[in-house]
C-alpha cells in the first residue's frame, strides 16, 4: 500500500478498481486465474508475445526500409525486450506460481522495470520507460483482444487514473461507471477540476508521477476530501475509509433534511444561496438542495463540447433547459469566459503567442473582437429568457468603455430580433463580474450602469495578488483571506449598497464555509456556490445572526495578514457551528 498526495478538487471518497487511461486506455478485468487454468494461461501469454514479436519485427523492417537504419534500431530495442528470457521467465512464474492472470503479470513486471528506469539518474534511460509502457500496451492489447474495455464502452465501475484528462474527456465520462478520477497534472481552477465538481465525482489532480506505480485493476481509494490517492490499500485502511464513507453519508443526509428550510439568519435576514453550474444537467443538483436559483451559469462547455462553433440553437436549447427549471428564480448566464488558447479548432485565428494568457485575449475581450460569436450567444439568451427570470452577465469587464461596448452590442441584437419579429424578452437585467481589481476600484462608477455585480473571487485574487494558482511554485501564495482582497470586496459591497445594485459573490471563496460569516457581515446577501456546498452553507447561515456576522467582518478588516484572517475566521466558524468543522 502507498499513498500519493495531490490537490482535492471534488469531494467525497470512493474505493474501486483502477483503470489507467492514456498509457493503457483499457483496464485489466481479472487479476487471478484458477490453478487449473495456469497451463492454458501461460500458453495464451506466449501466443500474445509471439504475435507482438512478429508485429515489432514488421515495424522494424518498415522503419528501416522507409526511414533508414537508425530508425529500425529503435524497434530492435523493443524486439530485444520482447524476447528477453529473464522477463519471460518472470512473467511465466508469476502466472504459474502465483496464479496471476497473464495481463496482470505482464503489467506488474513491465511496470516494475519502467519504474527502475524512471528512478535512475539518467535522462536517457528514464525516457526508455516509455518504450516499456509501449511494450506493455502491445502485449495487453493482444491478450485482451475483444475483451478490451475502452473508456467509451465501460461496462463495470472503475476509477480513472490518467496523466491528464482534457475537458472534453472529462465531460464525456459516464458517471454510472466512472466513480472518481485522479490525474498527474492539473490544478484547482483547471477546467478539468471544475468539471469534476460539476459531475460530482470525487477527484484529485496534480499528483505528480504515479501511474507507473499502478496496474489496471488494482484497488485504489480516491479521497477527494483530503486530496489523497491510496494504491493497493491494506485491510485497516479499507475499513477506515468504509467508516468514513458511512459517516459522510449520514452527515449528508442530515444536510439534505435542511432542503425545505429557508436560507436565513437567526434574525430572519434572507441570504440567497444559489448554484454555480456548467451543464444543464446540474440543474437537478441545485433543485435537490433547495438552491435559490443559478448565480453563475458558465457557458464555456458549449464551446468546448464540439469541434465546431455552437449554433444559436445549441445555445438556445441549453439555456431553455436551465431557465425553465427555475421559473420563479434568477438564472444568471455568463457570456463566454474562455481564453483564445482554450478554444479548440475554430478560433485558431485568435490564437497568439502571448506569454501570459490570463492577461491576454480572453473572455469579454474575445467576444468583443468576434462579434458574430458574441451576438449568437446574446440572441439565444434573449430568446430563452421569455421562459423565466434570466439575467446576462459579462465577465472580465475592466473599463467602462468595455462595458458600454458590450451593452451596445446587446442593443444591436435586440434591434435585430425586433426587426425579424422573433419572440424575446426585452428587459433582461444586465450585470458584470467584478474580477479585475480595476473594476473593483471603480465599482461606484460601474454601479450606475449595471443592474447587478457578481464578485468573481478566483480571478480577483489571482490578479490582485499576482499569483497563478495553477503554478505549483507559487500556489501557496494564493490566499482568499488576504486583507487586500477583503478591502476590495468591501468597497464593491459599499458601492453596490449606495446605488442599490445587488452584489453576489461567486468563486471558490464563497464555497469555503469559513468565509461565510465574513461575507454576510460585510453586507453580501447573495452567494453562489458549487451545488454540493449549499446545504452546509445553509446550516451556517441558519446558526448565526447579522449582528454576529458584522462583528466578525469588522474585526477581520482590522487584521494584517491572510494567516491572521484565516485563523480568526476558523475559530469563529467553530463557535457558530461546532458540528461542521470536520
Amino acid at each position, binding site marked *: 500500500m502507498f499513498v500519493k498526495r495531490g490537490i482535492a478538487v471534488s469531494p467525497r471518497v470512493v474505493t474501486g478498481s483502477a483503470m489507467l487511461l492514456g498509457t493503457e486506455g483499457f483496464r485489466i478485468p481479472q487479476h487471478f486465474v484458477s490453478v487449473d487454468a495456469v497451463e492454458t494461461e501461460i500458453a495464451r501469454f506466449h501466443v500474445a508475445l509471439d504475435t507482438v514479436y512478429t508485429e515489432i519485427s514488421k515495424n522494424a523492417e518498415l522503419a528501416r526500409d522507409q526511414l533508414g537504419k537508425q530508425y529500425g534500431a529503435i524497434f*530492435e*530495442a523493443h524486439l*530485444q525486450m520482447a524476447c528477453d528470457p529473464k522477463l519471460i521467465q518472470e512473467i511465466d512464474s508469476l502466472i504459474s506460481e502465483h496464479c496471476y492472470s497473464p495481463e496482470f503479470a505482464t503489467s506488474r513486471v513491465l511496470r516494475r522495470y519502467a519504474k*527502475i*528506469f524512471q528512478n535512475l539518474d539518467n535522462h536517457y534511460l528514464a525516457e526508455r520507460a516509455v518504450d516499456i509502457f509501449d511494450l506493455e500496451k502491445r502485449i495487453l492489447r493482444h491478450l485482451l483482444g475483444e475483451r478490451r474495455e475502452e473508456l467509451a464502452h465501460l461496462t463495470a465501475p472503475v476509477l480513472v487514473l490518467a496523466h491528464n484528462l482534457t475537458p472534453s474527456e472529462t465531460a464525456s465520462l459516464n458517471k454510472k461507471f466512472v466513480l472518481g478520477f485522479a490525474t498527474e497534472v492539473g490544478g484547482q481552477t483547471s477546467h478539468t477540476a471544475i468539471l469534476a465538481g460539476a459531475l460530482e465525482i470525487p477527484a484529485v489532480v496534480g499528483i505528480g508521477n504515479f501511474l507507473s506505480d499502478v496496474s489496471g485493476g488494482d484497488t485504489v481509494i480516491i479521497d477527494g476530501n483530503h486530496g489523497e490517492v491510496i494504491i493497493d490499500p491494506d485491510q485497516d485502511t479499507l475499513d477506515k475509509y468504509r467508516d468514513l464513507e458511512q459517516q459522510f453519508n449520514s452527515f449528508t443526509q442530515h444536510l439534505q433534511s435542511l432542503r425545505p428550510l429557508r436560507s436565513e439568519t437567526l434574525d430572519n435576514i434572507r441570504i440567497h444561496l444559489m448554484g454555480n453550474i456548467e451543464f444543464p444537467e446540474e440543474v437537478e443538483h441545485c433543485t435537490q438542495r433547495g438552491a435559490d436559483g443559478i448565480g453563475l451559469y458558465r457557458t464555456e462547455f458549449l464551446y468546448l463540447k464540439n469541434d465546431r462553433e455552437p449554433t444559436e440553437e445549441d445555445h438556445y436549447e441549453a439555456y431553455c433547459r436551465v431557465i425553465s427549471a427555475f421559473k420563479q428564480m434568477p438564472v444568471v448566464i455568463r457570456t463566454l469566459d474562455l481564453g483564445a488558447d482554450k478554444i479548440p479548432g475554430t478560433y485558431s485565428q485568435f490564437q497568439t503567442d502571448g506569454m501570459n494568457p490570463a492577461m491576454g485575449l480572453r473572455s469579454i475581450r474575445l467576444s468583443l473582437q468576434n462579434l458574430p460569436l458574441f451576438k449568437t450567444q446574446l440572441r439565444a439568451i434573449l430568446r430563452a429568457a421569455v421562459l423565466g427570470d434570466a439575467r446576462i452577465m459579462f465577465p472580465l469587464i475592466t473599463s467602462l468603455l468595455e462595458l458600454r461596448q458590450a451593452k451596445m452590442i446587446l442593443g444591436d441584437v435586440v434591434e435585430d430580433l425586433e426587426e425579424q419579429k422573433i419572440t424575446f424578452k426585452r428587459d433582461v437585467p444586465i450585470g458584470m463580474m467584478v474580477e479585475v481589481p480595476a473594476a473593483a476600484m471603480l465599482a461606484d462608477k460601474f454601479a450606475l450602469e449595471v443592474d447587478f455585480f457578481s464578485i468573481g473571487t478566483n480571478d480577483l485574487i489571482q490578479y490582485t495578488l499576482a499569483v497563478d494558482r495553477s503554478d505549483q511554485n507559487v500556489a501557496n501564495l494564493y490566499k482568499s483571506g488576504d486583507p487586500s482582497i477583503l478591502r476590495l470586496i468591501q468597497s464593491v459591497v459599499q458601492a453596490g449598497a449606495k446605488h442599490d445594485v445587488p452584489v453576489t459573490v461567486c468563486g471558490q471563496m464563497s464555497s469555503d464555509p469559513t468565509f461565510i460569516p465574513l461575507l454576510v457581515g460585510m453586507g453580501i446577501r447573495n452567494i453562489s456556490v458549487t451545488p454540493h456546498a449549499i446545504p452546509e452553507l445553509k446550516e451556517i447561515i441558519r446558526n448565526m445572526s447579522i449582528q454576529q456576522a458584522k462583528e466578525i467582518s469588522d474585526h477581520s478588516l482590522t487584521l494584517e495578514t491572510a494567516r491572521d484572517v484565516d485563523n480568526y475566521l476558523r475559530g469563529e466558524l467553530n463557535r457558530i457551528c461546532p458540528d461542521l468543522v470536520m
Partner: protein
Amino acid sequence: MPCSRIAQAASNFSCDVRIIREHVTVDAKNIFDVMSLSAEYGTTLALQAFGEGASEAIQELVKLFESNFNCEESVDT
C-alpha cells in the same frame, strides 16, 4: 541502442556472459539488466564469460564495443 546490441550479441552464445560496473554484475543477455547499469560513454565496464565459447563471446563483445556498436551516433548507454 547499444544495450539491445549487447544483449543481442550475447544471446548468440550459450555460455553465461556478464557485465560488471563497480559492484554491480548483470546478465549481458538481458536488455533490462544491461540498461539498468546506466553506463554512459566513458564508464569503465568489465566483461565476464563462463562456459562453452566463453572466449569467443568476449571477443565478439569487445569487437562490438570497439566498433562503437556498429553505428555512427555517439554512445550514451
